[in-house]
């Protein structure tokens, strides 16, 4: 409880490797999200990879250290922002082109197989990626605060005390 921040979480080796690797995992997640309309992957898979990067940070550095850098409130707001972005694309399509989820950005043939193509699909991918990543990170944070313990012979889910 009263131990210093540096001694929380896993060993120094894990922390150092996490410090180097987290950037690559985040970049890979963003690559999967942004190239979802060109290569296999998409918002869901990329979002899960991004969530994995945050979860790795939390596992390696301990909960207190991570909750100072990645706030749960910010994660919840990003989660909502992703959902609203996806819904907003649908509503703008209805307003601009007359149908719910209409792809209102024209995609000329010259732009095929390029990063900036496919109209609103990359925007939808970004929204879903934000949503899924932050949702799964929140699920992990919420579940890791709980703790299974045996008391008087039966198992119980109890909460670790927040410092």
């Amino acid at each position, binding site marked *: 409880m009263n131990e210093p921040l540096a001694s929380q979480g896993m060993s120094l080796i894990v922390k150092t490797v996490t410090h180097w690797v987290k950037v690559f995992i985040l970049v890979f997640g963003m690559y999967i999200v942004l190239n979802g309309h060109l290569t296999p992957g998409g918002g869901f898979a990329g979002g899960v990879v991004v969530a994995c990067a945050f979860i790795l940070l939390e596992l390696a550095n301990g909960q207190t250290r991570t909750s100072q850098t990645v706030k749960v409130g910010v994660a*919840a707001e990003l989660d909502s922002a992703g959902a609203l972005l996806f819904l907003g694309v649908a509503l703008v399509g209805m307003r601009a082109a007359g149908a719910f989820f209409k792809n209102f950005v024209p995609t000329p043939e010259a732009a095929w197989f390029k990063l900036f193509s496919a109209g609103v699909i990359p925007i*939808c991918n970004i929204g879903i990626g934000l949503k899924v990543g932050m949702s799964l990170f929140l699920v992990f944070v919420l579940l890791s605060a709980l703790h299974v313990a045996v008391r008087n012979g039966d198992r119980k889910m109890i909460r670790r005390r927040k410092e």
Partner: protein
Amino acid sequence: MSLLVILLVLMVIGAVIAIETTNLLSSIVCVGAIGFLLSIAFLFLGAPDIAITQLVVEILALVILIRATISRDLTSVSGDREFFGLTITVAVVLVIAVIGVNMFAGFPAFGTPVMDRIVEAHGVPGPPSATYLRHGLERTGAANIVTAVLLDFRAYDTLGEATVLFCSILGALAILRSRARKRADAAETESESG
């Protein structure tokens, strides 16, 4: 096909080990191995999108399971199975296996498009999947046809999926939040952390 059969047999073995072992950690690792084999099966069936999603979700679910279930004072489960319950379980599994074998015998061969037959029989203009494959690129501009279907042709389904995820995380935040719980059962909280 033989590779798929090998993968399926390995998955069944993994599932049996996951149920029968008394150590929670090895049980969870077995569940992860099943998911990994399933993603390999998807890859060989020509579905890299599903394989990637299955792989990353499996890894994440594994980590969450380990974190949520494994604690220092509870790493193994004990208890004997009752003979009566075991008999009923085996009987139910056998009945389901017989029904399944009979059902799959009536299916068309593996890899045969089913919708084409329905189209021939009922005179419908054509299966929607053929339209997606033929005109997917020129109508959406997306090179990945799976994403084109998910986010353009069938985006309404994806919106429903995203809404399900949103509502579940909303419910989890409401139930598991710390502030109201602390007041209600402050005696339940344990003094140790992490």
